[in-house]
């Protein structure tokens, strides 16, 4: 049962009413309403031009976070048996508890910073399955839930060990309900890049790390000790995350000169994502501070603003993020300049 009806745009008088509610059953809605009333984003409050933003901060008043973690018990079956629901205490099973906490951290970024109520902005419950298959060495999104393997113990350990893997998967859900970029070629690489970008932002937000403090790595800790590599991907330095005798080296390019044309991996979706990933990193580096506040906000605005089509390529995505920066922060803003320079540096724009 969900006592809070979904409403993404709430009239101020209702917000004021909700904010004043002192009933613990409505605590989430009340908190969200208070946030909406004070225009939580301090950056926007400080800057007159940002108030004219055509994509206003949304108010995530509505159905609260609801997580459902299931256990496949080593079989390749979905969803498996429900093992931890929202509000249930820790189970002691590492994968279950990591998935539960990781979904919470991901929801916190989207809900508290960007005002989005779950991945669909309508409070969809977040579902995950752990212990999928035998020595299964992958994590994936199946269109409805995240699925995590325990790893083969040789190359990969448990996939839930890295928060960025969980947030990456959940962002595939966000993308499905926003741009729905097709999973092939450049649109597919953008789909992957959005998952990496919000994946690392979730971790940075959770740890309260600035641009300089963050690792900018995806999947740190997922490799076993036998692999020479610190993570699966690096937004700061694509192509440097691992270099192993058996696995080879990280194939990601950082610029269009090194764009990889391939039929495998759905046309290199996990490879060429290095280019938009690096553009995001350069934008965040230019702006400094907390990456989710300005660079992340621009990317979020672009993803929900309607300018990205399912078959959009890098060039259009670059234009839409620049437009989003201009719309929110102004033509003469350092934010717009940061985005413009970043896309030029990775050679997507001239």
């Amino acid at each position, binding site marked *: 049962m969900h006592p809070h009806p979904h409403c993404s745009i709430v009239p101020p008088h209702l917000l004021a009413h909700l904010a004043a509610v002192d009933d613990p059953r409505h605590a989430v809605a009340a908190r969200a309403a208070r946030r909406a009333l004070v225009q939580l984003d301090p950056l926007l409050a400080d800057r007159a031009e940002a108030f004219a933003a055509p994509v206003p901060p949304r108010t995530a008043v509505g159905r609260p976070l609801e997580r459902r973690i299931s256990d496949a018990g080593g079989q390749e079956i979905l969803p498996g048996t429900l093992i931890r629901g929202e509000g249930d205490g820790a189970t002691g099973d590492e994968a279950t508890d990591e998935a539960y906490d990781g979904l919470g951290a991901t929801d916190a970024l989207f809900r508290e910073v960007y005002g989005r109520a779950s991945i669909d902005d309508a409070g969809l419950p977040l579902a995950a399955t752990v212990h999928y298959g035998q020595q299964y*060495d*992958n*994590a*994936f*999104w*199946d*269109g*409805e839930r995240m699925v995590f393997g325990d790893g083969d113990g040789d190359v*990969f350990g448990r*996939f839930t060990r890295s928060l960025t*893997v969980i947030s*990456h*998967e959940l962002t*595939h859900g966000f993308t*499905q309900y926003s741009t729905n970029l097709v*999973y092939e070629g450049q649109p597919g690489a953008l*789909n*992957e890049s959005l*998952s990496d970008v919000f994946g690392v932002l979730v971790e940075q937000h959770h740890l309260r790390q600035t641009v300089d403090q963050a690792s900018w790595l995806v*999947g740190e800790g*997922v490799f076993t000790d036998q692999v020479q590599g610190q993570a*699966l*991907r690096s937004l700061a330095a694509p192509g440097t995350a691992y270099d192993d005798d*058996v*696995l*080879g080296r990280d*194939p990601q390019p950082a610029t269009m000169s090194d764009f990889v044309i391939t039929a*495998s*991996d*759905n046309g290199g*979706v*996990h*490879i060429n994502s290095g280019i938009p990933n690096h553009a995001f990193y350069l934008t965040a580096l230019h702006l400094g501070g907390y990456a989710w506040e300005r660079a992340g906000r621009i990317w979020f605005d672009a993803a929900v603003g309607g300018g990205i089509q399912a078959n959009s390529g890098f060039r259009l995505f670059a234009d839409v993020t620049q437009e989003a920066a201009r719309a929110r922060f102004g033509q003469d803003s350092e934010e717009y300049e940061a985005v413009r320079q970043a896309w030029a540096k990775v050679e997507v724009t001239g």
Partner: protein
Amino acid sequence: MRIEISRSGGFAGMTRTWSLEVSPAEAEERWLPLADRAAEAPRGEEARLERDQRDRYVYHIVIGYQEVTLPESRLDEPWKELIERARRGSTG
């Protein structure tokens, strides 16, 4: 007859290759007919489910002159057995 299997994609986006040797009779009886059938794309509900999958592996299997590309969600038991055999026998 040599069978080459390459697995790309997955969360890691890492391509791995394994191979194994089977008798011509086994290839004719088991794997070539399976590869012929696998070349047909799924329709309806199955196609929809496949379309929304993210970070799953893609398998490219070469059996003699026949090749087939299969998303992980379409791998049923015989293919899994073949891949398992190749993985056990390969060092790479």
